[in-house]
């Protein structure tokens, strides 16, 4: 029914005539005849726009939107300032391609250049690329940057996000890079174990801080150990936390990566999100993907272009540093608009609120009998044990419009952001007590 073809039937006939054909079928003369489908695909008939809208609205209604969320674990519900969606919905930003033609793409190029600058400021690193697919692929690409002829093994903290670990594992298996997990002790990367695992074949070490359990890692000590053995240090960071925590540069990291979703992107059932990557000056030319640089034009104006392309697949083919060609340009712009409108003070305010609320909730949960599993400092996530049946608890919360923390091994991983009001947390505690008092203690 619906399609977006502009030419009318009579125009199409004229065009066919012009090329000397009498029917549309003749366009496919090169295709072996018995392979042609003749419109017998098992797909429903097309629909008018209004029908499609109704249909997908019904599908959307089958999902449950939780008004209150205490679950993070890699995807965080933050407040998205109104201007963010307004800017990134602009038709031209939406429909443009990769900015190969710099003369008519200065808008996209400058927005990426500004994004790169912000990521450098946030991480303290020297250079950022134009972004990659998400936090997990950013970590996997960072590992690939570090491989050297004699250094072929990556050590990954077992306290990293499971999807980060799994994605690195897949990429390493694929490329023939060794990978070992560094054990966890009291919710953090076990540095004495790391010390024993490091050797001359270690290419790099990945540690996320805050880690999957929300804990702040001993990031500087780790950096010193790693560099002592000549390996590269990849640090995973949360961009909101990064606005108040010691920067990867201050911790000695060679590469900083992270999931950029908290910077203005909707939860969207897991994507599109944003992988950010930044490196020291020494590692800049090993960064994968697009990078925008400043130069000047034939008239002496400041201009932005895609640069250092000698690293990339369309020039280098099998010798490229990665096969990646697209970035997540619109998501990078989302992050840049978010940071621009929040400003340094707003970013840090969001971070302090996340952290403060998590500590309020942790205290209240402890009072309700949910003891904290680990002893160190945490940012906006933490793990508790549960004195009540977790499944029953989650169901009770769900009936009351709350998505509880994520059930993890022997406990619950809770998360708060600036979106979690005190009254919601108090209501959560009240509901938890209800479950506990109903005799469901295990």
């Amino acid at each position, binding site marked *: 029914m619906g399609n977006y073809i502009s030419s009318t039937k009579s125009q199409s006939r004229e065009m066919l005539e012009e090329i000397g054909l009498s029917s549309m079928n003749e366009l496919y003369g090169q295709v072996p005849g018995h*392979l042609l489908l003749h419109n017998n695909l098992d797909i429903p008939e097309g629909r008018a726009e209004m029908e499609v809208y109704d249909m997908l609205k019904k599908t959307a209604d089958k999902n449950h939107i939780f008004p209150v969320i205490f679950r993070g674990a890699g995807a965080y519900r933050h407040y998205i300032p109104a201007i963010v969606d307004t800017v990134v919905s602009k038709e031209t930003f939406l429909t443009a391609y990769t900015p190969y033609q710099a003369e008519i793409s200065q808008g996209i190029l400058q927005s990426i250049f500004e994004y790169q600058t912000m990521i450098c400021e946030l991480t303290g690193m020297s250079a950022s690329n134009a972004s990659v697919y998400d936090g997990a692929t950013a970590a996997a690409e960072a590992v690939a940057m570090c491989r050297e002829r004699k250094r072929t093994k990556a050590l990954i903290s077992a306290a990293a996000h499971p999807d980060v670990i799994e994605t690195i594992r897949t990429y390493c298996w694929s490329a023939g890079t060794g990978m070992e997990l560094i054990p966890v002790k009291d919710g953090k990367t076990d540095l004495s174990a790391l010390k024993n695992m490091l050797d001359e074949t270690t290419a790099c070490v990945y540690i996320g801080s805050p880690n999957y359990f929300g804990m702040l890692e001993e990031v500087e000590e780790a950096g010193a150990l790693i560099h002592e053995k000549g390996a590269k240090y990849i640090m995973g960071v949360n961009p909101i936390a990064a606005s108040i925590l010691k920067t990867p540069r201050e911790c000695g990291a060679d590469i900083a990566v992270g999931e950029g979703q908290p910077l203005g992107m909707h939860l969207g059932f897991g994507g599109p999100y944003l992988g950010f990557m930044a490196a020291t000056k020494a590692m800049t030319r090993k960064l994968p993907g697009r990078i925008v640089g400043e130069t000047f034009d034939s008239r002496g104006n400041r201009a932005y272009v895609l640069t250092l392309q000698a690293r990339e697949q369309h020039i280098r083919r099998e010798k490229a540093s990665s096969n990646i060609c697209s970035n997540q340009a619109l998501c990078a712009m989302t992050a840049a608009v978010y940071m621009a409108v929040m400003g340094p003070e707003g970013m840090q305010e969001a971070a302090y609120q996340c952290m403060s609320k998590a500590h309020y909730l942790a205290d209240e949960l402890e009072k309700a009998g949910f003891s904290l599993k680990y002893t160190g400092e945490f940012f906006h996530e933490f793990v508790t044990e549960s004195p009540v049946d977790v499944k029953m608890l989650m169901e009770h919360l769900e009936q009351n419009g709350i998505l509880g923390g994520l059930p993890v091994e022997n406990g619950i991983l809770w998360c708060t952001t600036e979106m979690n009001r005190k009254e919601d947390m108090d209501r959560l505690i009240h509901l938890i007590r209800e479950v506990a008092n109903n005799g469901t203690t295990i």
Partner: protein
Amino acid sequence: MELLFEKSVTGRKSHILPECDVALVKPSVQFQRVQELNLPELSENDVSRHYSALERRTYGVNNGFYPLGSCTMKYNPRINEVTASMPGFTEIHPLQPDHTVQGCLEVLSSAEKYLCEITGMDAMTFQPAAGAHGELTGIMLFKKYHEANGDTRRTKIIVPDSAHGTNPATAVMAGMTVVNIKSGEDGCVDLAKLRAAAGDDTAGLMLTNPNTLGIFEKDILEITKIVHEAGGLVYYDGANLNAIMGVVRPGDMGFDCVHLNLHKTFSTPHGGGGPGSGAVGCKSFLAKYLPKPHIVTEGATLKQVYDCPDSIGKVKSFYGNFLVVLRALTYIHTLGREGIAEGAAHAVLNANYLMKKLSTCYHVVNKGICMHEFVLTMEKEAKESHVTAMDIAKALLDKGIHPPTVYFPLIIPEALMIEPTETEGKEMLDQAAEIFISIYQEAMKDPERIHQKPETTVIGRPDEVNAARNPILRG
């Protein structure tokens, strides 16, 4: 124009968050940031005007003709944006329990069903975020398959020299070595060379069909047979599927695995370079190796299954670029069975019509009917008059047309690769043909003048050599 940072005024800000309603907690000193957080300080009005100015310095499909070869810059229907903005999709946490995300799982499951039908595959994953990511996932499936068969010496991937650069780069990321084979005189796969290259070390062949010259590989059944008989698998690079969607299926041509660029063929917007979606489909014998989780139907409900012992693992967080998949599904619902094939046929018609018009003046590489795209070469003009493919591209900028892909495919010197897509009407093609031809004629009359182009854009030709030699990568 000024950078956001240059517009910053100390103390200026927007008021977005309310005051914190619990006691303030800060990290202890050892964890605190030392370096000042130097982000721009702006009002919301500053931000709004800044991005409006950037929008004016950007060119999208909404601005005009965008015949960028191999990129399928078709119109991006706005209903796709509306469905992808429904809170019932945007506000869903990826780790909600299955019974609260039945709508999202239905989207993934329906998209899998329809796209498998269109490609002739049996199963599909949406985890890959882009075409290149899909390629990597597909070649990983091949690797896993050969490993499972104990066939570990199969480490070579055959790639025609007309292929996209991502193909060889992908093979290397998957720990394979690349065997490039030279295309035949007609720009198609040279069967003799393929036979010579295929052997007991062949993991697979990566192929685009129609190829990057816009030619349908007429020997496709023989090509896939040669590789299969050597024990290898055949990978379909879906970049050019728009020519044949709904008309003929990669699965029926003998391909074992495909990736789709949902941001090309299925009309989701390119967003200035992403986010896209590189869905990967495969035949049933490869399905168990797909990334996890997989969605299954259990009675009336959909469920995610993580227990996939043979899976290659994950290639990305969660389930891929879900909202992009949703846009593509919206498009499939709109077009339906007939609309999909009709779109492909009109893409081919438009390409042939424009090719015919341009052939009166330009040297067209294609012989006979092309598919969705065709290639011009400026080899002769470059040699004789120093008018290059790049010159033509830059002159088009002044005329409000986005230039074709230049200098690709690599096997054609001074190439201009043109893909009009089905969503352009006859008037646009007529007008574009006139512009292309007038540029050519002017260039031949006055070759010096064209080197100065573009003249009306916000910047002139940028110095790319300087950008690479003296990299300034931040403000």
